[in-house]
């Protein structure tokens, strides 16, 4: 029996799927509707300073007919008064005692202001607080959001202001618009955070209208950078989540955010160290109903793998993460084409020919043009495997026997320094590696 319940930094929920602090959590109406459909938790849309939004605020990127692979926004924090939001949070929590209800906060960088809002938030009976150090647009111009997340000292300072009065768990939500995500994470830890949420949105310009030459989205002919989210940002988020997860100086529970649309995405975040996941863009695109497949798909997969709790998978893939210098340089694979599955689209051929190492020939065969790998020349880069549109047609087959393994770091200890091309060539020749 699979138990999806989690405890993320002291915040408990019946399943690990939370709505991220964003338009879908703008009101009690929405959050209650989401809970009815099975969502495990919700981080309320950030409340705090008075703001006013522009009318249009979203831009999307489509690719090859797929709508909204990325979504950006210049929407600010909640444009409804604090007291309305706090009242609705209290009512929602009362109605849904078993779900995680969290308030996302952002006020000006004054200790009293933070103390005040934290206290008022705790009065709602909610389960936790998330500090929004992430919004890269609008609020940052007013010294909030990513303006805080980009300066580790500010992260620590404001987190301290919050944790010194809060009696409920505090998560710190980080901006990815920084060169090394570990520093603000460590700063949050130093400030007493109970957990880290990441990533917030990436700085982005969505596009330019080729008729008007204005930015997309355009607000009365003007625009600027906005926060980028959705499926396209997932790889960035996975990297940052894993970086924080493996950093011994952080060592805090993680709520993973960034491009999660399916249970498969979520599973990857768990494997790289997230305990809960937060979702926004997929809900903005398809609605709360996606929770059904998120829960069911994850449960089925865990059952298949003989897993019974989320705790068993959190961080399971982290031991695989290492530096390039520790990768085995003698690991050898080559591509193999299953000609019975090949449909002769020859995308592998042109990719290899123009974009890789010219190791595929086209051979006329039974009236068709059959791509064939020249195994001796194949460097095993896997580009052909990646572009092949038929499942299981191209496979990367291991050719070394695994007996020998040498990493760059090990090699540098053996080869004379300073390293010469000739020494490297000799090592390659010894192992039958020909660079062409």
């Amino acid at each position, binding site marked *: 029996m699979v138990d999806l319940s989690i405890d993320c930094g002291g915040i408990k929920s019946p399943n690990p799927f939370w709505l991220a602090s964003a338009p879908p959590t703008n009101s009690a109406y929405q959050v209650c509707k989401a809970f009815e459909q099975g969502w495990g938790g919700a981080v309320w849309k950030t409340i705090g300073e008075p703001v006013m939004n522009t009318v249009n605020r979203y831009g999307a990127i489509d690719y090859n007919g797929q709508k909204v692979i990325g979504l950006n926004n210049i929407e600010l924090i909640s444009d409804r008064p604090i007291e309305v939001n706090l009242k609705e949070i209290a009512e929602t929590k009362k109605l849904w005692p078993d779900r995680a209800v969290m308030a996302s906060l952002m006020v000006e960088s004054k200790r009293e202001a933070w103390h005040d809002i934290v206290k008022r938030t705790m009065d709602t009976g909610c389960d936790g607080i998330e500090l929004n150090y992430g919004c890269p647009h609008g609020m940052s111009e007013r010294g909030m959001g990513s303006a805080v997340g980009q300066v580790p000292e500010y992260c620590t300072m404001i987190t301290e202001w919050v944790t010194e009065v809060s009696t409920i768990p505090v998560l710190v939500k980080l901006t990815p618009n920084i060169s090394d995500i570990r520093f603000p994470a460590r700063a949050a830890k130093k400030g007493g955070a109970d957990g880290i949420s990441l990533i917030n949105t990436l700085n982005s310009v969505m596009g330019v209208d080729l008729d008007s030459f204005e930015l997309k989205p355009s607000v009365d002919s003007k625009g600027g950078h906005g926060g980028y989210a959705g499926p396209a940002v997932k790889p960035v988020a996975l990297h940052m989540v894993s970086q924080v997860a493996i950093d011994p100086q952080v060592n805090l529970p993680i709520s993973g955010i960034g491009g999660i649309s399916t249970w498969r995405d979520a599973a990857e975040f768990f494997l790289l160290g997230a305990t809960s996941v937060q979702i926004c863009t997929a809900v903005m695109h398809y609605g709360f109903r996606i929770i059904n497949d998120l829960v069911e798909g994850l449960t089925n997969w865990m059952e298949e793998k003989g897993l019974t709790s989320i705790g068993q998978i959190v961080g399971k893939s982290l031991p695989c993460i290492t530096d390039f210098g520790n990768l085995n340089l003698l690991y050898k694979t080559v591509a193999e084409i299953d000609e019975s599955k090949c449909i002769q*689209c020859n995308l592998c051929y042109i990719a290899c020919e123009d974009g890789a190492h010219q190791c595929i020939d086209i051979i006329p065969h039974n009236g068709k*043009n059959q791509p064939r790998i020249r195994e001796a020349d194949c460097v095993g880069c896997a580009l052909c495997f990646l572009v092949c549109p038929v499942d299981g047609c191209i496979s990367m087959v291991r050719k070394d026997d695994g007996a020998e393994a040498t990493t760059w770091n090990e090699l540098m200890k053996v080869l004379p320094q300073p390293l010469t091309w000739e020494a490297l060539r000799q090592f390659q020749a010894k192992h039958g590696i020909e660079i062409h």
Partner: protein
Amino acid sequence: MNNLAPKLSHEEYEKNFAEIHPALTHNQAVAEANRCLYCYDSPCMKACPTHIDISTFIKKIATENVKGAAKTILESNWIALTCAKACPVDVLCEGACVYNGRGEKPIAIGRLQRYAIDWYFERGMPPLFKCAPKNGKSVGIIGAGPAGLSCAAELALMGFNVTIYEGKSIPGGLDTWGIAPYKMSYQDSLNEIKLVESFGVDIKIGTRVGKDIAVAEVERKHDAIFLGVGLGSSPDLNIPGEDLDGVCDALEFIEKVTTRKWSSINVGRRVAVIGAGNTAIDAATEAMRLGADQVMMIYRRSKAEMPAYEYEYELAKNDGVLFHFLTSPKRVLGNGKVEALECIRMKLASSDASGRRRPEPIPHSEFQIPVDMVIKSLGQKAGENFLSQIQDLKTENGKVWVNPGTMQTSNPRYFAGGDCTNGGKEVVNAAADGKRAAHGIDKFVFK
């Protein structure tokens, strides 16, 4: 005719002859274009007789460079709209689409091609091609069908002076006169003619070579001549009663239908179509759509030997056309007007010279089918009379012999292509022939 099928209302005709494959919307076209894998050296391109770079034009539709898509198509095929609508795509480009190998629906290549070319014509043919400076040479083209038009366009762009001689009052050949209206409108063919004319090609309509202008005169005027004369009428059945009122030729019948003056076309209540080729199917389905109660196809071999494409057969079946296989017409009966068709049952014996099993009558198996109209569709006769006026023009089984690489005939000044050389193939074959011949002519004239 004995029993005329009652005329239909305007709306019924419009509905019956509405396009089977309507135009794609912008959204549909981009979505379908995005489905294309963009194969390299794609099988669809190879399957097209004119070798249109299909995956490239489709990707251009996906990026909304529709003008570029039209250019990519037209660079390979000047008869692109007719081909988009009338090509047997199932056995050509779409049949070769790699998606078939993945067990999925092939890309709708024909409809995407139509999308691009419709776009081009709807915008008044923005200039995409520039004619080379005049090279001082002149080519006469006999017949303004797809082969002739294709050859003319290609030559004109190379700098030739080109004159087309067309016997009919409207050019286009079978593109204009021989394609069922639910596949395309003759207006589409006229658009293609306008494109060819925009390159400076002079089309002399109502000018039948050998009658309105002497062969010698054409030879005197031009450095080379291209024959795109097509084929003749359907052969006679050579059975009694063939001259009765109500017996007609399939192509003549189809020609009337393409004019779209449907209410003026008489069709019998019960119609027999003799033959089972693609033209026979067109005639049968058109008779059905004009309001006939029952249309029967009479074919002396079995379904397996039927020359019509599978999807044409399905189309006719869906229209309610009945098929009498292994049935041969013996007599048309009637008193001045067709009243019945006497047929005899056949059986298949051993294979004949064509490789198909030879049908043989089953003795004493005659039977009569009451009909009001008989449409003959036994293919087209090769060998127009005036071809015999051309010196040293070799023919084989009535087809003009050509060198397949250059389309040059046995008379070096004459080139030929399309149905008159292949005995009756697709529009796309004619388009490819015409283009190849143009390059053959260029080489010949400047050798």
